[in-house]
């Protein structure tokens, strides 16, 4: 799978990533390929296991930033929803966390096929 195909599979806007990466798609691809090594999703899972709101909020906030910059909109929106729910004092994150996990796994799956 090449970059264009991966971006289409994940509904990534090429205009948006060109804007963020100053038209340097080579740089963008390099960081997209690194995304599966990003530790913030793991940190979020740990926070959820411990039911630690502080850890959940921080990890989701970081993952939100990364996904936003990479144009992973579905994951970005899920992270944003989780951050807002935690800050608003919500108690039940299961639905949002489920959506977030699906979005994350989809992204990682596609990225693992990139340049394969």
């Amino acid at each position, binding site marked *: 799978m090449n970059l264009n195909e991966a971006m289409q599979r994940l509904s990534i806007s090429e205009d948006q990533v060109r*804007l963020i*990466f*100053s038209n340097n798609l080579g740089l963008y691809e390099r*960081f997209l390929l*690194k995304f599966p090594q990003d530790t913030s999703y793991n940190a979020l899972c740990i926070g959820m296991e411990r039911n630690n709101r502080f850890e959940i909020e921080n990890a989701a906030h970081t993952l*939100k930033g990364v996904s936003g*910059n990479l144009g992973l909109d579905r994951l970005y929106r899920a992270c944003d929803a989780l951050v807002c729910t935690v800050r608003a004092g919500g108690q039940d994150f299961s639905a949002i966390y489920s959506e977030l996990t699906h979005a994350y796994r989809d992204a990682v799956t596609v990225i693992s096929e990139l340049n394969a």
Partner: protein
Amino acid sequence: MMTELHTEQRKKLLIVDDVELNRAVLAEAFHEEYEILEAENGQIALDCIFAEANTLAAVLLDVLMPVLDGIAVLEWMASKNLLDRIPVFTLTSETLGETIDKAYELGVVDVIPKPFNPVFIRRRLSNILELYRHRRDLQLMVQHQTAKIKEQADALRYNSFTIIETLSTAIEFRNSESGEHIKRIRDLTAMLLRVLAEMHPRFELTHERIQLISEAAVMHDVGKISIPDQILGKPGRLDPEEFEIIKTHTLRGCEILDSVEQLRRSEIYQYAYDICRHHHERYDGHGYPDGLIGDEISIWAQVVSLADVYDALVSERVYKKAYSHDAAVHMICSGECGVFNPHLLQVLTSCAIDIQNQLYADSPL
């Protein structure tokens, strides 16, 4: 002291974010215009800012970071007054909230939202840096102008003072006395004030103030220029009418000082005017021209008054011989020459020997 670089010479951009991706995006946006420095936490950022304070054009600063967060970095920069010189932009996906409020309070110039829009960031950075450049240029201009104005003011002050001192000296010569009288009045006033300052700190007589007052004392008799020769130089006792004319030298002196505009605008004027007008007032209210009583008379006018009487007593004049220093002190303290402030009499007696040895060493008495 580090040399302050003009804004145009500041060409480094520090990007502070614990997420490598964020640093890479921003570096890509600015690497053609700036030399990029990166820090992955607040502590590394502090070290970098400290080392590069003179070369940093701006700092792009994330808030949430391990080791040391962005707010702590801002607080440190604020404590070192660096935020006036180095604009800081915070990077955040939040636009509201306590953290942002705090960042603004500390002095960030702008908040850069995530996800980044480099076009937007470049425009904001450019606008802010231009503002800083203009402000810096303005500050330098003001500094330069202030220095020039001070130089001119000092020159004017010196000129005004020289005019008055020359006039005062000329009057003394006209008075058949040497110009040494006004110099002795200046030195005697300074000595009395220094002792008074030690004994009574409540008068707040700083070194600078004493210097100013004693220079102002030089002008105390400038009004004598208006007194006719036959009265000023009369060897015998003055009749009541002649005495009334002599008394006018206080007010005439004030008119002369008032007429020198540059002097009026100087720091010395308030003292010179007061001394000129009131150096013949007496503590019991029997002086002239205003009949002031007690502490209505400024302490500096009282001191010059005392100095003037003392010098007159120990100097030869057309109308009298010189008294000895011991006799002069005795006459003043006993009230023979008018009533003086008891504190000043104490000051006089405590430094009488120094006055004689230091200021009248050449005197035959």
